């Protein structure tokens, strides 16, 4: 399915490219920044004709020039662009920004890309603050990579032997309305959002009318395999009348089931036509979610404005929080769709059904602050944000960020990326 989607995207962008090039022809040529003669762009650890996985981290190196974020005017500096399956764009114009021309305007020197199975071309092109290639252009050689068809086998995360997931209050053979709330329970294993690596933790997946997928690779994402990557413990499921099967499968930060796999029994449910159960189903939504926690909008999210994952920061730095589709309110204030921030330093995600602990590792921003200056010892640290309601209890679904890793102090050796 991914392959198909990428082909579609390539098709659409080809059309865009055609129209864009007409536009470019009319636009005046931009002044190009000069580049030193010896400047060179290369891929790191990636040869021509290499066979790679469909999801791969590509690293770039530049010699003879420096990296500067887009918008920063500096001599002999610029930022990377990765051209995928495309020819060089016109050199007197800003490089287009689309799925075939990836910009790394933050000064990144690596990127994780997703390619469909088959052969692809990759090429690097350096450009200045205005995204215009230098004069002479600083280009890498164009390499061909082959993406293998099967998804890559992934290492599996260990789970406690007694960990289990189940459907609270929903038995095998139950009769349910077409639109019903399905809740997920878990025992002896913690919930962590997708992307956050933590021992004996993961997030729910609901398998609808399907067999178990292979357990040594990512669970597919489609209408039969529903992901709850933000740590949700319930969902409103709409099913056509008739017999259906439901099964829960827990998986780790990369959506790969644990070892041993943590899954529920496959249960059969019968969905009854709407008219019979309609009055019951039309009950007003409860003020608090079924879990007893304060409900939060489904599209709300909390994120780090600063720092970004994997970056190096000063020992004393201001951590800045962003919140999308919700508001901030001090602790103790009961207002729908609001909460206050908690900054978690070097700790695992706490249990989500009780108040967030208050100690040196769990910093409460109870006055509604949206940033916090902290001092950390040198070394590697993790940061995570969780929104809490008036009682410091996470919302349902929990509004929490990925757990990011940051480094304090002098650069150490590059750690293997996980």
């Amino acid at each position, binding site marked *: 399915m991914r392959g198909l989607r990428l082909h579609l995207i390539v098709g659409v962008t080809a059309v865009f490219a055609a129209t864009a090039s007409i536009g470019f022809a009319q636009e005046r040529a931009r002044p190009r920044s000069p580049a030193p003669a010896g400047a060179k762009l290369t891929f790191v650890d990636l040869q021509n004709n290499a066979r790679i996985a469909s999801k791969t981290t590509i690293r770039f190196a530049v010699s003879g020039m420096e990296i500067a974020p887009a918008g920063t005017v500096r001599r002999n500096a610029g930022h990377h662009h990765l051209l995928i399956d495309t020819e060089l764009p016109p050199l007197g114009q800003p490089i287009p920004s689309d799925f075939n021309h990836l910009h790394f305007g933050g000064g990144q020197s690596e990127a994780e890309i997703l390619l469909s199975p088959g052969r692809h071309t990759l090429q690097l092109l350096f450009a200045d603050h205005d995204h215009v290639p230098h004069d002479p252009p600083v280009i890498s050689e164009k390499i061909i990579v082959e993406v293998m068809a099967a998804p890559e086998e992934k290492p599996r995360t260990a789970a406690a032997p007694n960990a289990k997931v189940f459907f609270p209050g929903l038995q095998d053979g139950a009769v349910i309305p077409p639109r019903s709330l399905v809740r997920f329970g878990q025992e002896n294993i913690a919930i962590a959002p997708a992307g956050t690596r933590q021992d004996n933790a993961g997030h729910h997946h609901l398998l609808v009318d399907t067999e178990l997928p292979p357990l040594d690779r990512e669970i597919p994402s489609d209408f039969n395999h529903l992901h709850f990557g933000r740590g949700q413990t319930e969902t409103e499921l709409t099913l056509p009348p008739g017999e259906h099967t439901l099964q829960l499968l827990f998986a780790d930060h990369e959506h790969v089931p644990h070892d041993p796999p943590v899954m529920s029994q496959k249960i059969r449910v019968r969905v009854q036509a709407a008219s019979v159960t309609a009055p019951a189903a039309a009950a007003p939504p409860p003020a608090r979610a079924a879990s007893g926690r304060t409900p939060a909008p489904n599209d709300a999210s909390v994120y780090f404005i600063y720092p970004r994952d994997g970056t190096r920061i000063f020992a004393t730095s201001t951590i800045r929080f*962003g919140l999308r589709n919700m508001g901030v309110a001090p602790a103790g204030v009961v207002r729908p769709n609001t909460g206050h921030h908690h900054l978690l330093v070097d700790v695992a995600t706490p249990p989500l059904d009780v108040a967030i602990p208050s100690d040196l590792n769990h910093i409460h921003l109870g*006055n509604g602050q949206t940033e916090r200056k902290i001092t950390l010892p040198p070394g590697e640290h993790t940061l995570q944000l969780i929104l809490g309601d008036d009682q410091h209890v996470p919302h349902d679904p929990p509004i929490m960020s990925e757990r990011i890793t940051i480094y304090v102090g002098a650069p150490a050796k590059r750690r293997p990326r996980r």
Partner: protein
Amino acid sequence: MTIGTRLPASRHHAKAATLLLLLAALAPTAAPVFAQTSPRQPAPRNAIVYFHYPLDGLRVPERFTVRIGLKEMGVAPAGIDKPGTGHHHLLIDTDPGPPDQPIPSDYNNIHLGNGQTEVVVTLPKGTHTLQLLLGDHTHTPHQPPVMSQKITVYVR
């Protein structure tokens, strides 16, 4: 939260009307204070409100998210009287009014009354100014006012 600002397109009228309704609901709490100009809430001297995005002089698309940072103070929804907190107001193409009066509610003065720290705005093409101003539980600026610089953005 999405706000259509000063746009001719008719589909934005519905949104704008909802906004006005919302603001009208808030007005009664503000009115008595307006009449007697009650003492303004003190703000720490080093409190700063600032733009994470966009920055001064930036070219932005017609629809973009304004992200707001606040230093040395906290955010609280309108109506919550708590020292050292306030809620954000985004001033578009306008100057702040007298600091002892509640911030007006109109298309140019966008109230983020639920404690939001970002807002999606849609602006017509051209040059616009943006400024942030913190208001207390009655929408009145603090003493001294916690206000950002007025920045200019170019909507393309």
